[in-house]
């Protein structure tokens, strides 16, 4: 007989609880085996009051933390979230902000428990643990998570977690989303589920590591302090609440919140969706071949296919399947299961579960197939994930459209949302305007255009998938952090996908590089050559941002002396930008990620963000809305005529609809469409010839070859659909 002493048995107590909780869910189907919401039933007011208090505690802790941070990303844009967890690491309540991370932090806590952290390095009151390893639990290297345990007397009764998106991570390219990382080793500073603090203080040696390995340590370190302050604040308030209501009630009620969240999610799916199989497809183009700094392993252009299947069961459980998507690669756009959880969570919380108990119950009511070896689940932890949003957002934008099809089928037209798209990130660094080195992500991309809704236009410059609190931040604050000043930040005309309800428009910024001999810019997360998101029901896809403009040898002072007009945006002429037509110097046009020669004082740089996809046929758009869009600069006059088939009169700055001419134009377009149409069967025969002869551009051929190699099911379906030989392959 083996006698286990108390001292020996204790270090695995938490692990046993985690395994027990998972077992009881597996066997009973209820979270932690909770089949009866008895706290809710017996005293609903006490129960709801606790939930509201916990939520207000995490929300106010986040606001406190934002005042500590030095990062405009956190202070201005709100790239932060605070959440409360059970001892096993399941989210109970979360603040506003980047809700993406609720389950990523959950994975991080569970990972520590599973890997024996109770024994070594030990989990004690006052400890602080940090992680930004996506294979343990986060989305990408800049998403640094801190967690602290909550002890009540001797017992660990929960965790508080906080996440900030860092603006600089010390990677091979400057900033947070390290565009040129091809492997983990170039992604910057990793903290792999480490104990970074004790006794409610961050260890000085950890801070020294940050100070010596980052270009702007002030962002990371003060964000760490902000997060840990928030966690301690929540911990202390939760302890005070437990003293009031009793530990047994706290433990029971918080678990019921999660079980209730799970049931609410299932009920919402049953209410809004039609059970069955939904299929969609989206693509992502990455044009980097031959660009400056691209290492040999990834020196080619990538085209990703993201086929997406959603099975909704009769009891309201969605099963997401990424079978058929491409393999992970030597680029920074790979994603881990934790990152995919993030995409799922933020989509569901915004799209479906926004008014209920938003917690890990939502996650328990869903599941995903992430085939090993694909970009959704690399089979090697050295794969880089620094810009995983590049593929993640198109994937979950497609998910939103599939959900919306369900909503539409059930008649919930007002819930229909065309979905999210990528909004490109600008990362930069070099010499700052103050003389030192710097690195920063310019997070104004957090306010792009949303997809259209089933009943109205999308939001203009006010949406991004990963942070429902969308905010572009004040220009003046961004200018404090980078050696560029704004010449303009303006609505980009035609950037909302055309439709009966158009996608939300985005904006373009144009900067003058200021007081620096070297500014290196690296952009990421924008699809090239293919749309990364579609429209719905006849709406056009969200336009993708393809081109960057940089002007060198501008001689701006001379232009100002001569009182010549300066460029403030790219203008509305589709054939030439204001940057080219107004500027005297050399203008460089870069397709896809801007990976080019550094800029210097006096240069100009323009960058555009993405709008959302449209809903419905644009020639069904209310002509008065088109006139209003033209008047306000959302749509150009030529697009009003060519796409919206709306003929306008323009007198003294006022645009009015020529109703008769518009009606005639729309009728003519309908007839022309019929004239151009061919039966699908004939079109398919024509296309089949191309496929059978493999007459596809290199990137497309490679994309299908990869998908067929990764998934026998995809390969079989592909051959069957195109009626190809059994041994057909690319």
């Amino acid at each position, binding site marked *: 007989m083996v006698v286990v002493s108390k001292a020996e048995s204790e270090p695995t107590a938490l692990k046993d609880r985690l395994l027990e909780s998972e077992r009881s869910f597996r066997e009973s189907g209820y979270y932690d085996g909770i089949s009866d919401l008895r706290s809710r039933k017996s005293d609903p007011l006490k129960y709801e009051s606790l939930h509201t208090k916990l939520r207000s505690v995490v929300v106010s802790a986040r606001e406190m933390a934002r005042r*500590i941070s030095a990062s405009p990303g956190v*202070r*201005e844009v709100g790239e932060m979230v605070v959440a409360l967890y059970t001892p096993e690491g399941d989210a109970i309540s979360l603040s506003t902000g980047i809700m993406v991370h609720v389950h990523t932090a959950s994975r991080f806590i569970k990972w520590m428990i599973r890997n024996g952290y109770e024994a070594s390095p030990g989990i004690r009151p006052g400890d602080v643990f940090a992680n930004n390893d996506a294979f343990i639990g986060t989305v990408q290297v800049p998403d640094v998570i801190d967690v602290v345990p909550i002890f009540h007397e001797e017992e660990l009764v929960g965790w508080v977690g906080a996440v900030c998106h860092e603006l600089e991570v010390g990677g091979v390219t400057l900033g947070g989303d390290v565009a040129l990382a091809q492997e983990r080793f170039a992604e910057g500073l990793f903290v792999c589920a480490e104990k970074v603090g004790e006794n409610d203080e961050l260890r000085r040696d950890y801070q020294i590591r940050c100070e010596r390995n980052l270009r702007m340590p002030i962002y990371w*370190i*003060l964000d760490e302090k902000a997060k840990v302050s928030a966690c301690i604040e929540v911990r202390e308030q939760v302890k005070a609440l437990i003293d009031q209501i009793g530990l047994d009630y706290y433990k029971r009620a918080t678990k019921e919140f999660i079980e209730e969240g799970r049931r609410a999610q299932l009920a919402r799916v049953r209410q809004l969706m039609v059970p069955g199989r939904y299929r969609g497809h989206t693509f992502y183009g990455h044009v980097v071949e031959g660009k400056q700094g691209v290492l040999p392993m990834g020196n080619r252009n990538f085209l990703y296919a993201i086929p997406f299947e959603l099975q909704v069961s009769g009891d309201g459980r969605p099963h997401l399947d990424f079978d058929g998507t491409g393999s992970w690669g030597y680029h920074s756009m790979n994603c881990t299961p934790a990152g995919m959880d993030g995409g799922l969570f933020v989509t569901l919380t915004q799209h479906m579960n926004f008014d209920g108990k938003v917690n890990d119950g939502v996650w328990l009511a869903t599941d995903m197939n992430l085939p090993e070896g694909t970009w959704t689940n690399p089979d090697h932890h050295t794969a880089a994930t620094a810009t995983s949003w590049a593929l993640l957002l198109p994937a979950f934008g497609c998910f939103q459209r599939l959900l919306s099809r369900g909503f539409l089928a059930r008649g919930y037209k007002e819930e229909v949302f065309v979905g999210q798209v990528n909004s490109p990130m600008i990362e930069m660094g070099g010499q700052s305007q103050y003389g030192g080195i710097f690195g920063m992500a310019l997070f104004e991309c957090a306010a792009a255009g949303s997809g259209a809704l089933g009943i109205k236009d999308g939001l203009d410059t006010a949406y991004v998938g990963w942070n429902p609190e969308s905010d572009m931040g004040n220009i003046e604050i961004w200018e404090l952090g980078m050696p560029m000043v704004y010449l303009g930040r303006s609505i980009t005309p035609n950037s909302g996908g055309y439709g009966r309800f158009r996608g939300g428009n985005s904006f373009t910024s144009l900067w003058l590089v200021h007081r620096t001999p070297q500014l290196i810019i690296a952009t990421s997360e924008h699809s090239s050559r293919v749309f990364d998101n579609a429209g719905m029901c006849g709406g056009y896809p969200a336009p993708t941002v393809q081109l960057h403009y940089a002007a060198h040898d501008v001689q701006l002072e001379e232009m100002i002396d001569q009182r010549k007009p300066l460029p403030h945006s790219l203008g509305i002429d589709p054939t030439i930008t204001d940057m080219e037509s107004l500027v005297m110097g050399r203008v460089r046009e870069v397709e896809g990620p801007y990976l080019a020669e550094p800029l210097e004082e006096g240069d100009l740089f323009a960058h555009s963000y993405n709008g959302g996809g449209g809903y419905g046929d644009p020639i069904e758009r209310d002509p008065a809305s088109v006139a209003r869009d033209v008047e306000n600069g959302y749509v150009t006059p030529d697009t009003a005529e060519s796409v919206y088939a709306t003929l306008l009169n323009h007198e003294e700055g006022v645009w009015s609809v020529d109703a008769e001419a518009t009606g005639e134009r729309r009728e003519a377009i309908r007839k022309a469409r019929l004239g151009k149409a061919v039966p699908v069967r004939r079109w398919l025969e024509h296309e089949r010839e191309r496929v059978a002869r493999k007459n596809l551009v290199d990137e497309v051929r490679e994309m299908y070859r990869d998908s067929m190699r990764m998934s026998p099911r995809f390969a079989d379906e592909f051959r069957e659909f195109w009626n190809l030989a059994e041994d057909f392959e690319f």
Partner: protein
Amino acid sequence: MSAEGHDLREVKLYPFAMMRYTGQLEDVEVPAPTFRLESDEGLDRLVAEFDRIYEAINRSVSHYREAGHTITELGMIARVEKVKPKLTRRSLEGEIPPEEARKGKRKMYYGRAWVEAELWEMDSLRPGNRISGPAIVEHPATTLVIPAGDLVWVDEWTILHYEHGS
């Protein structure tokens, strides 16, 4: 303050500094220990006071003295007991305001319609005066809009009373 009738000997001055750890985006208001920072010791005391207040607001872990401190603003709070207003009771005069209060008429857009409103000067109204809407009563610091049906009257303390019509 003396122009407002305060005895300057009664005014108390409190110097403060707006401070942050260098690189932060938010200030903390720190009462300064002295009016003039003339020594390292004085500066040290100010910095120590910042650290104390900052940690009280944000919890101890959030300090980052290694980054250095920045003073973004110096300021001073002048504090004195407010002069209490003295209300004078006056005898009521007629309901119709004096001629000097009358400023003519102007158009007023109210309730989705344009109406002709009487225009009055608030400071010239007398106790007992009554003004029926539509009217606008102007004052250097405010504008009182009285739609048709509502009534404003001035009591014996020169306080304006607003009554909604039925």
